[in-house]
């Protein structure tokens, strides 16, 4: 997997990722920030810093994985732990002492609140699959993790956003909705999406592929949700 960062971009405030700062006092004393998606002093992480670290992560796992699906699984499990923590953090910062107990509400929580906390904007759309009642799709036209990644042809269908699908799986699993989440890179049709407000990534050509995160829930989650419906 090659990586071609253009120049160290200083990131735009829209691409905010939860930052954790080091300190000499106990972490239990540091403020956690009560506004959703932002650290208390408004500081954010630079996109290029994330891109460099992520590229190392991918290269590390690629050296150890024997196959494409194993690489994907490793990236997903790397994201899983992040998902568990993001769930607690985002729920806490949202101030309401409410948990999600229904399928649709947890999906909205993921596509809106979690996306905002991680990427600075809500996911572009949430869809339900027509053929399978247990499948849903979260679509992002500018997926962050694969911004500077070009996948060579011998890695086939691998999506660098496997890390993000691991995060989603961690959030869903932690909340009690176990699901299998996979990332797919789909070409954007002509005229399917026009960017409002200009290119959010100045200096780069518009993305040709959108990321589709396919979420497939386990049967017991669906039956529990159906039972709650009554």
């Amino acid at each position, binding site marked *: 997997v090659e990586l071609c960062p253009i120049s160290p971009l200083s990131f735009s405030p829209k691409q905010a990722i939860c930052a954790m700062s080091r300190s000499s006092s106990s972490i*239990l004393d540091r403020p956690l920030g009560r506004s959703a998606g932002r650290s208390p002093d408004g500081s954010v992480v630079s996109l290029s810093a994330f891109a460099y670290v992520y590229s190392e992560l991918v290269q590390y796992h690629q050296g150890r994985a024997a196959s494409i699906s194993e690489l994907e699984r490793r990236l997903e499990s790397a994201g899983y*732990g992040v998902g*568990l923590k993001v769930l*607690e953090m985002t729920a*806490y910062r949202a101030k309401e*002492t409410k948990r999600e107990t229904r399928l649709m509400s947890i999906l909205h929580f993921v596509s809106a609140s979690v996306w905002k906390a991680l990427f600075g904007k809500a996911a572009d759309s949430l869809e339900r699959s027509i053929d399978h009642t247990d499948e849903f799709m979260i679509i992002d036209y500018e997926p962050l993790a694969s911004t500077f990644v070009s996948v060579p042809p011998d890695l086939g269908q691998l999506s660098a956003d496997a890390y993000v699908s691991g995060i989603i799986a961690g959030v869903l699993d*932690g909340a009690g909705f176990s699901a299998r989440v996979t990332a797919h890179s789909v070409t954007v049709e002509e005229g399917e999406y026009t960017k409002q407000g200009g290119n959010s990534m100045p200096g780069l050509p518009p993305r040709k592929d959108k990321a589709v995160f396919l979420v497939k829930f386990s049967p017991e989650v669906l039956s529990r949700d159906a039972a709650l419906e009554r």
Partner: protein
Amino acid sequence: MSAPVLFVIVGKNEPLFEAEIDTHSSVGAPGQNDLSTRQNYFVLHSALDLVEKSAWTTNSMYLRVVDKVNHQQVSTFLTAANVKFMLLHGGKGEEVVKNFFNEVYGYYVKLSMNPFYKYDTPITSKAFEARVRAAARAYLS
């Protein structure tokens, strides 16, 4: 005069944190007699079934009193990731218990942000324990 309160954090499979807090003494909990301690743990653990049952029927985090045994009540708080905070107490007010849970919730979220803390594993941080005890003394006495 009052019995100590028992506070337990339960994850998916096992208790992650336990503290028996004597809210009326100025030092940490002195030894209580073993039998009632064991009984208390038993009562708390048997209340887990009731917690599971009511977990999916409401979407608030604070579950109020889920069980009453003898003169003691079990109150529960559920975090977004379904980690259960349970308190066995002898009839403290709702608001008081809710504030205590909210404070411990804040500490728990901060603790879980630590990259060295793996989710759903026992909590061994002394700082966390000290803060939970301080919060209990502040809110529950």
